């Protein structure tokens, strides 16, 4: 299989990730609950993950909250900053992981900036919305549908200028674009562990500049007599037993990224993207591409997008079609009715795989090859 769906999850992990998962399953008990060797071994695995994340994202280990997914982290962050009915500014490219929790809270949602690959529009509209007042802002770093890299540093600066706390959804950028939590100044940054960070599914990270509001209450292995949650991070936001094998694997993914370099991986993905965009255009496909694009693209195949993805699957190519859990992004780009086929490159993408994909796509091109 040629895997071009890294936007959904990284399918092939570095071998040390698999080994760490298995080793943790065999040797670890419950972290932060006991003093015997297997419990201590688990606690050490968990702390190693916090340290590896803190090193990669430039923060302190105790600011790294371990979550079950990026969605989990976003829910914690949104509930920490947004009150019922509060006004929130979001970009026009948000995932349902952002919009659904806001809808559930009854937030007044202001969508700002809907033009693809247009930083000027994004920033102008975003500032206009902030100027009208907002309780919080939530924005994605990279659109999961189109790969549009938003001008998040400037958006962060605007939030600070207008005194609006903000959350960054780094679901598609973590592991491909360097992020410094310290210099970025976000209240929260949420990310999955299983995409660009190369860990197993069921892992995520939430970087926190404030203690936040617990989404769940329960045991933390500390302050057990108190009936309210501890005030300190990370335990405050981590009730229940942590996914030790998952985070042991994620630690290895994070170390791999540190050794290879996030920029190196991002450049590799971008090279494949450019190659793919020009190839699809030669085939007469409508491709959504522009400046400020990461290693993800969407295209219209000239037939139903799900049928196109199915044909590609039969030829051994894995891509994702449809709405990609991001109706807002499709609405912004005018593709809500049709959906798109998404191609997303990962850390291990090879030029030959892009060629193979283009050969497969040429089979339903309307331009004779």
């Amino acid at each position, binding site marked *: 299989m040629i895997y071009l769906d890294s936007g959904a999850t990284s399918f092939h992990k570095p071998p040390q990730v698999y080994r760490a998962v298995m080793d943790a399953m065999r040797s670890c008990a419950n972290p*932060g609950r006991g003093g015997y060797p297997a419990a*201590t071994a688990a606690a050490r695995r968990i702390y190693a993950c*916090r340290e590896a994340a803190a090193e990669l994202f430039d923060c302190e*280990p*105790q600011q790294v909250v371990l979550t079950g997914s990026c969605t989990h982290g976003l829910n914690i962050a949104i509930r920490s900053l947004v009150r019922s009915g509060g006004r929130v500014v979001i970009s026009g490219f948000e995932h349902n992981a952002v919009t659904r929790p806001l809808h559930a809270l009854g937030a007044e949602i202001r969508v700002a900036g809907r033009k693809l690959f247009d930083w000027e529009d994004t920033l102008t509209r975003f500032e206009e919305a902030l100027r009208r007042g907002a309780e919080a802002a939530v924005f994605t770093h990279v659109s999961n549908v189109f790969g549009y890299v938003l001008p998040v540093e400037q958006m962060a600066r605007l939030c600070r200028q207008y005194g609006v706390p903000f959350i960054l959804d780094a679901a598609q950028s973590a592991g491909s674009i360097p992020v410094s939590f310290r210099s970025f100044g976000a209240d929260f940054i949420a990310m999955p562990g299983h995409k660009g960070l190369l860990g197993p599914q069921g892992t995520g990270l939430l970087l926190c500049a404030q203690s936040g509001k617990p989404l769940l209450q329960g045991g*933390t292995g500390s302050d057990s007599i108190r009936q309210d949650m*501890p005030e300190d*991070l990370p*335990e405050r936001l981590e009730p229940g037993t942590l996914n030790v094998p998952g985070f042991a694997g994620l630690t290895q993914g994070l170390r791999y990224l540190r050794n290879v370099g996030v920029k190196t991986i991002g450049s590799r993905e971008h090279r494949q993207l450019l190659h793919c965009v020009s190839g699809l255009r030669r085939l007469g496909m409508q491709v959504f591409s522009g400046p400020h694009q990461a290693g993800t693209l969407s295209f219209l195949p000239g037939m139903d997008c799900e049928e196109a993805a199915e044909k590609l699957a039969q030829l051994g190519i894995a891509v994702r079609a449809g709405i990609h859990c991001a109706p807002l992004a499709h609405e912004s780009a005018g593709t809500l009715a049709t959906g798109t086929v998404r191609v997303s490159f990962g850390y291990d993408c090879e030029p030959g795989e892009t060629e193979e994909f283009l050969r497969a796509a040429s089979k339903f091109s309307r331009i004779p090859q």
Partner: protein
Amino acid sequence: MRFYYITFRSVTYAQRGERILQKEGIRCILLRTPRWMEEQGCGYCLRLWAEGVKPALQLLQMAGVSYRKVYIQGRDGQLEEMTV
């Protein structure tokens, strides 16, 4: 041999303290806090040798790693809280 115990609010804080002290060559061991030392229930502490306690407390304060209490082992082996 006399020991000191520094108690922390959570395992994460105790681990952070352990890392900082070990980086500076101060020997310490991460343990569950004895129940009588921790009013709020379960917790973790660092046990260290007497000669390391002063620089250890300074290092923890400099790094912003807050601890709860410090206990010293007396000549009779009994532990008592130390005013820091």
